[in-house]
């Protein structure tokens, strides 16, 4: 029971950055909530011409990721916004070999318990206010 409560606390702490869990790595999503096209650079990788209302999703490893978004050129408007998103690796000890909740009484050794690794995901919604005032 304590273990479940601990997992719930971890989830609550990561909630601002968390949309889903994945076993193979985290993901960064950026949504264009403006009425213009955006160029979005995630960790140096450009994602060009993201349409209004469109979004990108990028697989990423744990760590901090620098993201820039700016109005695609030729629209008669300039603006840049930056942010840093974090992807965390979460280790959880979930069950023993009998499929029961793992705790000190039903796990005779460390090897009997199952460990799983998951990664948090992070989403950034780019709004016009964030881009306002930024020059190219």
């Amino acid at each position, binding site marked *: 029971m304590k273990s479940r409560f601990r997992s719930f606390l971890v989830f609550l702490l990561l909630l601002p950055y968390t949309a889903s869990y994945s076993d193979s790595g985290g993901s960064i999503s950026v949504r264009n909530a403006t009425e213009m096209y955006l160029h979005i650079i995630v960790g140096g990788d450009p994602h060009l011409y*993201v349409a209004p209302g*469109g979004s990108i999703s990028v697989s990423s490893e744990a760590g901090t990721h620098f993201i820039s978004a700016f109005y695609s050129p030729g629209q008669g408007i300039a603006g840049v916004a930056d942010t840093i998103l974090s992807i965390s690796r979460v280790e959880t000890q979930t069950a023993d070999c009998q499929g029961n909740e793992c705790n000190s009484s039903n796990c005779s050794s460390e090897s009997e318990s199952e460990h799983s690794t998951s990664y948090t995901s992070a989403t950034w919604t780019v709004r016009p206010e964030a881009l306002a005032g930024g020059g190219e």
Partner: protein
Amino acid sequence: MNSLQRMALAIVLALPTCRATAQDPQDSTATFWTFGIAGGVNIPTGGWSEHPYARGVKQFGSAWTGSAEIAVHTSRRFSLAIIGSYAPLATDDWTEYAASQGDRIESSASLGMVLLALRPRPYTDGVNAITIELAGGVLFTSGKESFGSFNYEYTFLPGVSATLEGGIEYERWISAEMAIFVRGTYAFGLADLEYGDGRTSALCTAPIIAGLRLRL
């Protein structure tokens, strides 16, 4: 008679001579090889060449193209060729449009192909020939842009992809060793352009070239 008219008359008078001296390169049943070079214009066609939101603006426009080929003529009616070509993609329409909107950008893009072509020849009289070209190979695309402090690659281009090409060629042997040709082809990539949010667009292009072919 001005100089242009004199030149035209000279060409007309020379043609029968060329025909008279040309030998049927396919007279012999022996296999022979040719090397060719050509130049012309590459015309990107379809939605991929249009800018995603600037209406009527070509992001990738027509420009010169160059190609080289080595062909083996296995019979009077068939040859096999390996072709390499390169074509820059004109971006001036797009950069000028961006400038008109107050954004100074610099942009460049290009396209290249390496093809293996099958060339059946449905018509030949020994001097003139009509050839069909059916080819497959690899298409290379690349592009980059700088805008303010940002420099980025055109990652929406497919990069390296498979391609198929078809076309028709008129060839005229002006001597036993040399031919001139004009060829129009249409090629499409098997991988699409893919923009940041998943929208896609098929890549098609139509090179029209004229060139010279030498018997090796």
